[in-house]
């Protein structure tokens, strides 16, 4: 089997596992991790597709999309974590 196609399937598997974890887990930290793994799976699908391009260089457009996606994902994760910490402190009665 083609190497790039194999990794797109790995990406699909990652997305499916993460989907399961996202809904079966309750702790927000775990759910954020699940979302990040789902993101990695999607990025893998994109980069696998880019490598299927029959040239010496892969298609750079998905690469740029994934780089953008990684930065967006870390921004959202970072904000989610701050929200989580704020909520936890509120629960402890601090302000």
């Amino acid at each position, binding site marked *: 089997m083609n190497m790039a196609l194999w990794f797109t399937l790995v990406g699909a598997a990652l997305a499916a596992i993460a989907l399961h974890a996202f809904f079966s887990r309750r702790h927000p930290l775990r759910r954020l991790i699940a979302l990040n793994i789902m993101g990695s799976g999607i990025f893998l699908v994109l980069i696998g597709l880019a490598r299927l*391009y029959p040239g010496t260089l892969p298609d750079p457009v998905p690469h740029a999309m994934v780089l953008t996606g990684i930065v967006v994902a870390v921004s959202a994760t970072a904000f989610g974590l701050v929200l989580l910490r704020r909520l936890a402190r509120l629960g402890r009665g601090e302000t």
Partner: protein
Amino acid sequence: MSGVTLALDLLLGLSLVWLAWRTLASPTLFGAIVLFIAFGLLMALVWARLDAPDIALAEAAVGAGLTGVLLLAALADLQQGDNLLPVREPLRGWLLQLILALCALGLFTLLTLALLGLPSPPPSLAGQVLPRLDGAGASHPVTAVLLDFRAWDTLLEIAVLLLAVVAAWSLGSHPHPNPRIVGSEVLQGLVRVLLPFAVLSAGYLVWRGGFAPGGAFQAGTVLAAAGILLLLSGLGRPFNGRHWLWRALLASGLFIFTGVALGTLLLGGGALDYPAGLGYGLILAIELGLTLTIGLTFIALYAGEQDAAEERE
């Protein structure tokens, strides 16, 4: 030889799936985070295997490194005393479990069918990008897409980055993580050694991005790592968000980028249409601004805003 690489690819893919499963099924939060970091490093290996060195760098630095640090810092904060968050994971009913498992299986089947059914080779934009590299402001294809052909995406992504800081600070300050390692002399020694290297390699990565893998994201993350080490070692102090200068520095990348976009628009060429000959210089200017902003943003997201009052405590 191809048999060996095939076996390695299969092994790499399978271990990635296995590691993801272990991460998500880990009984403790700490274990989940550590496994997630390992997962990120393995991902970096896969990116390298797929000829995506830019993403390998970004994944190792951002995906595994920075996200891992943020997760660990949050965990340290969450584990101080009781809070409202669920501690135990109650087992869901078997029916729900079954439905979820079927959903996951369904998604996998759906994607597999879709991916295997794609035309071979799939249509792509690579044929559009490569012939136009001469007219672009960067000869490295990925940088050319990011900062020229699809610079609009990147501009908005920088807006997302600044939004994350604004959003985080709107929630009020949170205490700077204060683990026992702060003040360790060994760490301070290491930081003193590493700091010049970090600045040097950040500069190198930006300059390299014009013609080879590298660029502002990777460089910014290196800067952020240096900054976080400074904070951890106790050599540096978190910056004070109440001072407008810090906020202006955080926003500087976005100011430069929108400035270039509106400048090119007002000069009559159309937004982000770099004038002939100026493309390389403008892209380098944008990248330098982005590097600084990205570095500062990640530090700000890690340390949170510190009020002047709190700093004195």
